[in-house]
């Protein structure tokens, strides 16, 4: 094997290794707990129907945005654990703005999206400001901001709420039909449409890639993430980079709830999906902060979620079992990459040593002559 093909094999090998390990660990948990491991895997690995495919793509879209938001921070060595709070606050504001419908039709949609992006950025910006002015770790501050946003949204919802018909829930005014984002059909029959927002999500992914790899800003960002002293030495203002990347991360986080809002829920109520931010962290790690990797990670997580859903009814097994799988994948993926990296380094060292040995004996043989 040439060194290059070895490296490619190792890079592909790591995620496979991780998936196998997570598969084994989940199976062990199932067996020890007395649940039928084989039946569980048969259900999870069965071919999804087109309705399920639509569901998988939909939740993957949402996961993708969340992962992307986290990844922007990660490239800078920033841990934006606050995506959860950022998207909930942003989705609420977007729902309120769109529900009020100050402007007609799609202008209303655009206005709401802009509002969400700005709110997400501002909420993340608090953590960024605290970091650059007061040296507060963004890990702690974003966690606190998550909790604060829960209370804040509850308070604001009570101010802006209207009663939802036919239930005790309260929510924002429903978005007028003209401002919904239409779905894209992936099959026939009901429930086979995917969120139209997926187009925007894909564009954001391309934008992320271009920004990081093709612009001065992206270079600065990656440089700062790799080595802060080197970045400072080459004239990059680290404080500015921290603040800007936190704002960008928050801006993307602001869009996380929008596919659901404009494609499905059409208002923000107490039952609006939460916890998407934490899944984003796992997915960004899984995808190694690469836009395609994040998409694959998002699809995998969404696939596991959807396929595990009927477990309770079919086999009387708690679907939470896939949370163990998901968490284990995150851990095993990073471990696998580390193991593979160490193996690669050792391999390289051995090759170099062998090459030097050959040359050394050559020159030794020549010396007496």
């Amino acid at each position, binding site marked *: 094997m040439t060194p290059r093909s070895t490296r490619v094999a190792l890079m592909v090998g790591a995620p496979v290794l991780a998936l196998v390990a997570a598969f084994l660990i989940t199976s062990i948990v199932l067996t020890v707990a007395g649940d039928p491991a084989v039946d569980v895997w048969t259900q999870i690995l069965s071919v999804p129907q087109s309705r399920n495919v639509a569901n998988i793509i939909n939740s993957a879209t949402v996961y993708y945005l969340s992962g992307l938001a986290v990844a922007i921070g990660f490239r800078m060595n920033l841990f934006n654990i606050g995506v959860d709070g950022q998207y909930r606050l942003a989705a609420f504001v977007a729902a309120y703005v769109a529900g009020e419908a100050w402007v007609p039709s799609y202008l209303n949609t655009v206005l709401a999206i802009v509002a969400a992006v700005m709110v997400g950025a501002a909420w993340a910006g608090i953590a960024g400001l605290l970091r650059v002015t007061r040296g507060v770790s963004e890990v702690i501050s974003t966690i606190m901001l998550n909790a604060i946003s829960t209370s804040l949204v509850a308070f604001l919802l009570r101010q802006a709420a209207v009663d939802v018909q036919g239930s005790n829930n309260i929510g924002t005014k429903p978005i007028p039909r003209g401002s919904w984002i239409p779905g894209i059909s992936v099959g026939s029959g009901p429930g086979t449409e995917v969120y139209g927002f997926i187009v925007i999500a894909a564009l954001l992914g391309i934008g992320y890639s271009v920004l990081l790899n093709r612009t001065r800003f992206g270079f600065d960002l990656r440089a700062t993430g790799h080595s802060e002293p080197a970045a400072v030495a080459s004239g990059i203002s680290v404080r500015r980079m921290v603040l800007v990347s936190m704002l960008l991360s928050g801006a993307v986080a602001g869009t996380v709830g929008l596919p659901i809002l404009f494609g499905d829920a059409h208002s923000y109520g107490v039952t609006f999906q939460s916890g998407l931010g*934490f899944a984003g962290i796992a997915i960004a790690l899984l995808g190694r902060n690469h836009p395609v990797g994040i998409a694959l990670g998002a699809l995998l997580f969404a696939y596991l979620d959807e396929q595990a859903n009927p477990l309770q009814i079919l086999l009387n097994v708690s679907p939470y079992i896939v949370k163990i799988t998901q968490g284990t994948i995150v851990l095993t993926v990073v471990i696998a990459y580390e193991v593979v990296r160490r193996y690669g380094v050792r391999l390289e060292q051995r090759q170099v040593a062998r090459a030097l040995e050959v040359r050394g004996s050559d020159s030794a043989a020549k010396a007496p002559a």
Partner: protein
Amino acid sequence: MSTRIDRPDAAPRQRARRSLPLAYLVLLGLLGVMVVLSVLRTVTGAEDIDSSGTLSATLVAAVPIGLAGLGGLWSERAGVVNIGLEGMMILGTFGAGYFGYFYGAWQGVIGALALGALGGLIHAVATVGFGVDHIVSGVAINIIALGGTQYLAALSFSGVPGGGQTQSPTIDELPAITLTFLTDPLKTLEGKHLFLVSDLAALLGGLLSQLSVLTIIALALFVGTWFVLWRTSFGLRLRSCGESPVAAESLGVNVYRYKYVAVVISGALAGLAGGFLAIVASSNYRDGQTGGRGYIGLAAMIFGNWRPGGLLAGAGLFGYTDTVRLRSGGQSVHALLLLVAVLLLVMTVWQFRRAQRVGAGISLVIGVAAGVWYLLSSEVPGDFTGMTPYVTTLLVLALASQRLRMPAADGVPYRRGSAG
């Protein structure tokens, strides 16, 4: 040498501060806090801000935060950042619920310790053994612990009488001590609403009534941690792994072993924190019981500058803000606004005199805002009282974080043999 020439008084002053006994400092600090609270109570008339009920509940709220922080202290002193405390705490609540219900309360305590230690072991294997980024591993553990306990709880408790998918049946209580001959006269004294005297009576009465054995154990663990980490050679070696693992290795310390031990103990303490929540603070395991207290414990530890005494103060502060919102929350939190306003205005003057114009400006703006809010309203809305502990954490970290110093090699992956 040069530092001594620059600041000849630095070293002796440090020594003088150190020689003050810890217990003395704690008592002095507590007295100061009680004076402030009794002034505040007298001025605002919010009686619940330091009633014995509030202070007793504060202790119950502070112990899990403190124990989680203590777990963070062990791990970070050995150089491993432990954001997985939350997950280990969740494992602890389940361990307490499972073993507590099926075997008994003390077995529940053991179960909480053991499951927390298991979480710590996973973290240690990932971060120490495989050199994985500490925060990544911590986040993964939080996900696994949450999903794992939800799965296991559904498996263990559904169909059990009094239990369900998301909660265990009631666990037997651990013994609690109430010194009735002391608490009854203290209660009478508290009822007279005298300045400071009644407040101190409330404090003593609150601390001495319904004192769980686990609370006493937790306090003993604080003293024990301080002793082991700062007064034994084992502790010195452990802390050396957090300051400079390379230097420690060159002196023959088995860095990996110390880190493993520290992180497993860290997990066990976080697990105990969860166990306390399940057994003492409530009476069963419930899904979502920890409510982010692991993270708050971490913040308390940072607030306490990676020292047990400071952590205790931090845990007390966060425990108090967590409690006060539940005890006539609107009124009590409203009274605290006045305190925040005054503290920030004092801070403004102090910063201004140290020529920190920007900092002084920010303190002034927030302080005036809190003051105006206090004057213009009579109660804080319910949703905002829920934010109290988190806003306090942010404010405290924003004001204090630049004076803090974490262990030098905290969070840095270390590989054996890198000493060369």
